[in-house]
Each structure stands twice: as C-alpha cells, then as structure tokens.
C-alpha cells in the first residue's frame, strides 16, 4: 500500500513530539516531510535560559538532531518558511518556491513574541527572547555592552535578566504591573522573589510604562523613557512582554482562527485534513505557552493521525517553575483564590519560605510556593487528579506522603541535596547523574528517567525525589501523569479500571480475549500487562477462568522465590507462626538430604530454606509434606501472632488461635499484591499489627481491626477500621475488606496505595455500613477459595513437570 503523506509545518518541540508518538504507534503509515523556518533541528526551547546563563551549551539542548530525521525516514527542510497552504490542491508552498503535497497536514507553527508598539522598537539592540538566534544575540551583546533593560517581569523576562546579569551586564527589569509574575504569583510570593533577585544584583522598576526607546549617537539603542518622564540608559533592550499564537499561515489559508488556530478535542482544525498542535493552537479558547500541555496535545493528535481514534485533549492545568539557579519558586492552578475557596498558608519571612495551598470542596485547585518547593510536584499531582484531601488536610502543608523513607539518607528535599548524593539506593544513582540525563537526553517524564537512569525503577522509595528533580530541572515542562487516566502499559491506552470493567461486564475469561476486545497494540502483551490481566480474569471469574502460568512471574510459576544466583527459596506455611517437632524434624532432614546451604528464620515467623536447585523443588516439597507458604506470591503471606492470653500474663485475647484461624481461612488467597496479617493479644501489640495490611489487636471487650498499614518502603501506620466482638466477626470483616481490595485495586497496588486512592471512608462504607454487602463480599471470597489446591502437593505428585526438568540432548 502506498503510504499517505504527512507534512508538518514548524519544527519545534510540540510538533516533533507528535511525530515521535506517531512513529511509536504507527511507524509505517506516513511518508513524513517537515518544514522548519529555523536553521536548527529540534532543540529544547525551555533550556534556552540555562544556555543564556552559561550553565549549558547549545549542543546539550538538542533533542532531535538531523540524523534522527534521516534515521526515521523523515524529509527535513530547514530554513524554509511555508508561506502558503493550497487547501484545494492539498499542498504547501515555501518562500523559496518549494512545494509539497499532503494527505494530512500538521501545523505546529508555535508563537511569536509580542512587540510593544512604541517608537524605537525596531532600533538595533532591541530584541525579543524566543529562539537560539535571540539567545546568541544576547550573549554577544553581553560581551560588548553594559546596560541591559528587560521589559517584562514574567517568567521569560526574569530568566533573561538573570542570564544577562550572570554574563556581567548591569540589568534592570521594567514591569508594568504592581508585582512580578502577576499571572503566576500572589503579591507575597512576588515580593519574596523580588528580594531574592535583588540580592543577586538585579534592579526592578515596577508599575512603569515604557513610552519610547531612544537611539544613541550611532543610531543604536541608548535610552528608555517612561510615562512618568524618567529615563534610564540602555545598550540592550529585551522585550519579554508575552507571546501570541502564530496563526498567520492558517489564517491566510482561510482556516478558522481566534487568537490561535481553533482546534477540537482531537486537535483537528476546521479543515478535517489539517491538524494543529502547540502554542499556535486555540483549544476551548485557551492558547498554552508551556511545554507540558503541548506534549499532551501531541499524544492525542498522534493517536488520531494514526487512525486509532482514542483520546481527547480536554485542556490542561499548568504549573510554573522559575529556572533561576538558587531561587526556588513554584506555582500552579488558581493560586489567587476566590470567594468560594479556602487557603492554607505557611509564611516564614525570615527563613524565606512561603507556601500557599488553595482548596475548593476539599480539593487542591492552586498552589504557590517560594523557598521550599519540594512538595510542588506532589501538590500538582493531587491538583490534576482532583484528589479529595480532607483526610490528609491536617498535615498537607508538611510534606509528601508518598515519599519513601529509606534508601536515600533520610532526604526529602531534592533541592537541598548535593549532586554527589545518592537518590536511588537500590540502583546507586546520584542526583547529578539524574540531572545530567534529564538535560542531555531531553527527558520529561518519570518513566523516561526510570528507563534511562534506573532511578526509582526498583522499590520506588525515591520516586518523590526523582519527581522533584525532574520538576526543578525541566520547570513548567513537567507534568505528572494523571493518575486516573494512566494506561496499564505501553501495549494499550486503557486503564486498569477499564480493563477490569470489561472483564466483568463482558464475561471475559482469557488473556487473548481481553487483548482482542480491548484492541491491544501488541500480539501477546508484555511482562507488565499479562500478569495483571491473568490476575483480573482469575479474581473476577473464579472457577471459570483458567490460569495461564506463562503469564505469571517466575516465582508464581515455580511456586518458589528466585534468588540472585538462579536458585530458589522454599518457605513452608506455619499457621500463625506455630509449628511442631515433627515438622521441624522433616525440615532438618530435607536440609541435610538436599544440602540446602542456608536456613533462616523469616520476619514473618516461619523458616526459609535458601539455595534450593530448581530441579529439586518437587522432591523437597514431597519430603517436607507441608503446605506452600506462598512467600513467593501476590497472595496471603503470613499471619504474625504474639502468644496471647493462653500464655502471656498481659494477654486478653487468644491471638495465636485467631491468627491460625485467619491463616487457615485465607491461605491460598491471591490478591493484587502480597498481603500480610498480624494479630496481637493486647494493645502492647507485640505482633506489630500497626504496620500490616490487616492488623488485629485484642482488647478486653473484643478485637480492633486496622487496615492498610505497611512496614516496607514507606512506613505507613495502619488505620482503624472498626471494633468487633467475636472471632467470627474478625474473619468476616477482614475477609470483606480483602475482597473489595481483590475486586477493585489495580494489580501491584498494596492495600495502602489502594486505600490512599479510594479513601478510608469508601472502605468503611463497603465493609462497615453496608452489612448485606459485607456478607456478600465475604461470601464471594470464600467461594473463590473453595477447593483451591495446594500447589506444592500437586507438583510433588507430578504436575507441571516440564517447569522443573531440563531438556536432555
């Protein structure tokens, strides 16, 4: 089939990102041609300020060099401005006469800087700040002249001023409004910003209107005059008073524009063959000037250009970070507040810290921060997710709940870390390495950083820190992934919830059926989605769906834990941590017979046999003659207990028996992730019930049940769910809790993550308030567990032989 022709006008970040997305999902659909007016390939425009400040070089900010276009078969025309679109003949025409026909046209013409219509605006030495050319002009001027004036105290103006100051110029910022960055900051924050920039040597003239730019004797810019009659010297004037969408080309072709090319939610213009993305676009009446929304547009646009027809761009909430080294500032959403909003404010004027969170209906709608912006990414994520924060409101101001607390030297603020400090303790990645990778490789998302540096890709404890580093390095270009729209993996655009719903509503029983009906992009998924779908079909349709061992991670396929040397560990079940002389003798005999090199007591009150050869596993299990402990599975692990009222002089309940009963009832229960229980016989809580998925604590009058605790990456104290009287109730309430988790959480969510997302109130409503619902949930769990066989016994008797035997020549 002959390829369709896609022509792109404009060669900036938004457009090229769209092409990258198309190449990713449908690489053979189009023959692609790109026209760029600049002489450069695609570079990272948001890093022009570090280049001006002398912190980076032009070479370092290239995103796609000329080779990239060639490697992907894209025809690239640099230095060629398209001046006409012939929509009837479907071709574009460049200023030099070059013509190119198209089946689809993508307009990514960006924006133009706004130039004040005042006398002297065209004098030599008066420039705007938009591209490499402008940046070079500023660097050159800084080497020759003394007085620089920046008109405009917005983001770009301040970054330009800072850069020129660092290059040795004497810099004055002239600003019309009452305070700096009035579109991103409130007055308090702006005053603090002004003070810290003044400490760096910048001068400010606020509420000043420039009326004319006056020439010197050589005909170059010499002075600036203001409406109040004052004049100041100026050898270089940078106009940074705003941008406007560059829609001239589209307008001249008769495409509907209103301050930008008007597009639908699919990024289509009024001409169905023509799409537009980036700063040139007007979407629902808004033109965006930050990178993050442009990337979201690119993703949607690519999807539609690739004929997949999924996804709508529904507008963006943007955030701002000022890229001035040493000045920490963050702003997002509605930071000013209104009559129907509430504010939480922390202001330490001497310490230089100001944080304001604006709330509406228990949700964050805006935030502005100066001095300590470490939690900016976290607030922004919750803002975008529209997360209800009523449960965490009292400590919202004091930091990040999802930041782990091990493996990075107790640090919680990336800005205060030196480049040489370790951020990711699992993979040994330092802050400097992450910053370097983000800049040099043009990374914008957490996923990108994980792929390239491995930071945050193992236990995830440092994810918050990595996000902070990402946010401060790329500034406004950083947008956390929307939690609710997050696709399962790269094989699909569907979320976990959508897949679960389809499995339930359409009675899907196999992985291939799910993938076919949900239009998976890959023939048989990947190592991430297959185990998830396997769990979803099995948990939704117990006794109907058939397990696919090849879609299970090796530990669950081999029913033992793989170790770094390829051997396995075996942990038999000991209900409630109780065992017997006979069991211990068999364990000792197995250790001798199979020369097992290490025997260790686990944290979950059982015994771990380490270093077992895979081929020996079925024989070891046969000789042990004990049930599988499922220590390798996303399933019920242990029920840890204290000795309780049978022996302990303080015990008020028989916690050991309760633990044994719970473990007997729920053993073999698979779940989205591992599940740990503990039962303590009195509030001294020796079994550490406070950090378990389900923690039960005996009190004189019954049992207290706590849920969603975690003792791992981030120590999370379990939350009180309810108090019950009898052991039967403990089983029913905790079983119902687990069943909601099993039916609704995303695969690999621990209970703590799931409850944090849905809220404890929701859990209480399902498990406590709705008595009938609770009984039904508990019934479904018991039904799912009915007749579940012990995997070790089956394999000891010869099942799945091929898994444990090598092929022989």
């Amino acid at each position, binding site marked *: 089939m002959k390829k369709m022709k896609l022509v792109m006008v404009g060669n900036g970040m938004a457009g090229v990102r769209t092409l990258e997305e198309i190449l990713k999902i449908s690489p053979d659909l189009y023959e692609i041609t790109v026209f760029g007016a600049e002489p450069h390939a695609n570079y990272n425009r948001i890093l022009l300020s570090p280049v001006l400040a002398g912190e980076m070089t032009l070479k370092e900010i290239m995103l796609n060099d000329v080779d990239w276009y060639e490697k992907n078969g894209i025809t690239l025309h640099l230095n060629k401005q398209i001046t006409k679109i012939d929509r009837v003949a479907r071709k574009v025409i460049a200023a030099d006469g070059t013509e190119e026909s198209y089946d689809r046209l993508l307009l990514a013409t960006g924006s133009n800087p706004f130039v004040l219509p005042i006398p002297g605006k065209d004098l030599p030495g008066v420039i705007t700040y938009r591209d490499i050319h402008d940046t070079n002009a500023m660097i050159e001027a800084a080497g020759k002249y003394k007085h620089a004036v920046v008109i405009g105290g917005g983001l770009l103006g301040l970054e330009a001023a800072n850069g020129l100051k660092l290059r040795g110029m004497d810099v004055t910022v002239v600003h019309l409004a009452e305070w700096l960055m009035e579109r991103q900051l409130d007055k308090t924050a702006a005053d603090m910003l002004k003070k810290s920039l003044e400490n760096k040597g910048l001068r400010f003239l606020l509420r000043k209107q420039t009326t004319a730019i006056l020439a010197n004797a050589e005909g170059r810019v010499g002075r600036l005059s203001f409406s109040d009659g004052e004049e100041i010297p100026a050898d270089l004037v940078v106009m940074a008073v705003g941008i406007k969408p560059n829609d001239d080309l589209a307008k001249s072709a008769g495409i509907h524009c209103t301050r930008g090319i008007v597009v639908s939610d699919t990024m289509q213009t009024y001409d169905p063959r023509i799409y537009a993305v980036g700063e040139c676009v007007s979407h629902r009446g808004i033109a965006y000037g930050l990178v993050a929304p442009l990337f979201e547009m690119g993703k949607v646009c690519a999807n539609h250009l690739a004929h997949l027809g999924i996804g709508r761009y529904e507008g963006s909430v943007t955030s701002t970070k000022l890229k001035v080294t040493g000045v920490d500032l963050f702003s997002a959403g509605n930071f000013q507040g209104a009559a129907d909003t509430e504010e939480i404010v922390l202001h330490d004027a001497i310490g230089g810290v100001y944080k304001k969170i604006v709330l509406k209906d228990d949700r964050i709608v805006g935030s502005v921060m100066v001095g300590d912006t470490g939690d900016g990414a976290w607030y922004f994520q919750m803002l975008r997710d529209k997360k209800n924060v009523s449960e965490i409101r009292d400590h919202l101001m004091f930091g990040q709940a999802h930041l782990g607390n091990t493996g990075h030297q107790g640090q919680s603020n990336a800005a205060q870390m030196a480049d040489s400090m370790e951020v990711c303790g699992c993979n040994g990645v330092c802050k400097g390495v992450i910053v370097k990778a983000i800049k040099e490789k043009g990374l914008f998302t957490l996923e990108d950083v994980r*792929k*390239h540096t491995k930071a945050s890709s*193992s236990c995830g404890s440092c994810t918050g820190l990595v996000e902070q580093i990402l946010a401060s390095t790329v500034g406004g270009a950083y947008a956390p992934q929307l939690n609710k729209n997050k696709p399962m993996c790269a094989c699909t655009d569907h979320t976990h919830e959508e897949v679960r719903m389809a499995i339930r509503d359409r009675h899907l029983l196999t992985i291939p059926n799910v993938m076919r009906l949900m239009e998976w992009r*890959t*023939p*048989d*998924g*990947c*190592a991430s989605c*297959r*185990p998830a779908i396997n769990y979803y079909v099995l948990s939704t349709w117990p006794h109907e769906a058939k397990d696919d*061992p*090849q*879609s*299970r*991670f*090796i530990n669950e*396929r*081999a029913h033992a834990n*793989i170790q*770094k040397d*390829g051997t396995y560990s075996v942990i038999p079940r000991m209900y409630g941590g109780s065992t017997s002389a006979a069991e211990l003798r068999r364990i000792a005999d197995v250790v001798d017979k199979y020369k097992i090199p290490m025997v260790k007591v686990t944290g979950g009150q059982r015994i771990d046999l380490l270093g077992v050869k895979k081929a020996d596993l079925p024989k070891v299990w046969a000789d042990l003659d004990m049930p599988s402990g499922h220590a390798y599975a996303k399933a019920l692990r242990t029920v840890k207990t204290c000795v309780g009222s049978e022996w302990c002089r303080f015990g008020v309940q028989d916690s050991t028996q309760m633990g044994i009963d719970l473990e007997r009832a729920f053993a073999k229960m698979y779940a989205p992730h591992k599940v740990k229980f503990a039962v303590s016989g009195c509030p001294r809580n020796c079994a550490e019930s406070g950090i378990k998925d389900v923690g039960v604590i005996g009190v004189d009058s019954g049992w207290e049940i706590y849920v969603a605790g975690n003792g791992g990456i981030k120590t999370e104290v379990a939350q009180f769910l309810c108090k019950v009287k009898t052991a039967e109730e403990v089983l029913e309430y905790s079983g119902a809790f687990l069943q909601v988790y099993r039916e609704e959480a995303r695969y690999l969510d621990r209970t703590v993550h799931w409850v944090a997302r849905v809220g404890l109130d929701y859990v209480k409503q399902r498990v406590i308030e709705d008595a009938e619902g609770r009984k039904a949930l508990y019934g479904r769990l018991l039904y799912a567990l009915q007749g579940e066989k012990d995997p070790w016994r089956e394999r000891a008797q010869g099942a799945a032989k*091929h898994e444990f035997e*090598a*092929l*022989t*020549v």
Partner: protein
Amino acid sequence: MNAPEKVRAMDTWMKVGAVEDIPPLGARVVQSTHGDIAVFRNAENEVFALLDKCPHKGGPLSQGIVFGRHVACPLHNWSIGLADGEAVAPDVGCAQRFAVKVENGEVLLNISK
C-alpha cells in the same frame, strides 16, 4: 535463529526434544558444555536459543516472561531480544545466541555456532 539451508558437515545439530515440550510463550533449559542454554518458543511457534544468562547480572533468561520476540529477565526486568540477544535500549548488552531450528516437530540445537 533461522538455520542455514545446508548444514555443514562439521556442524552438529542435536535433537533436544519436540516443540510441544516447550510451552508456548515459555522456555526450557538445555544443559551443555557452554553452560545452560535457554530454548524459547513464542506465540507464533518460532523457536530461539540464547545462553541462559542475562547480560545485566546473569539472571536465568529461561525463567522470564516471553512476549512477542522478547523475554523479560526475571531478576531486574531487562527486555532481551530473542532473535538477536540484544537488550532493549536504553539498556545495553547482548546474550550469546545459538543456532536452533525445527524439523518435523523436533527442535534441533547447534551449539557450535
């Protein structure tokens, strides 16, 4: 992974079992003088052979999840191409390949190449 048309006399093709002995989207191990060799079978019934050692930290690739023409190492989830042994970028590394072919439902492995 595809076998040459003619087998040179000095090459030795060894029968290691039937295709059905390897689960689809799975692997079996063949113990050889070169060390363990993982023989994979994908959904299209293509068969591949790699040294059972991830180029990253030596994880047994035979134990990984097979998808498309890749396997995910069970230790740290590197993706390794079954046909060329190459790690998927940005990771860098290569697992040694061995010639393998299927004739009349029999899997034949040649560890001399």
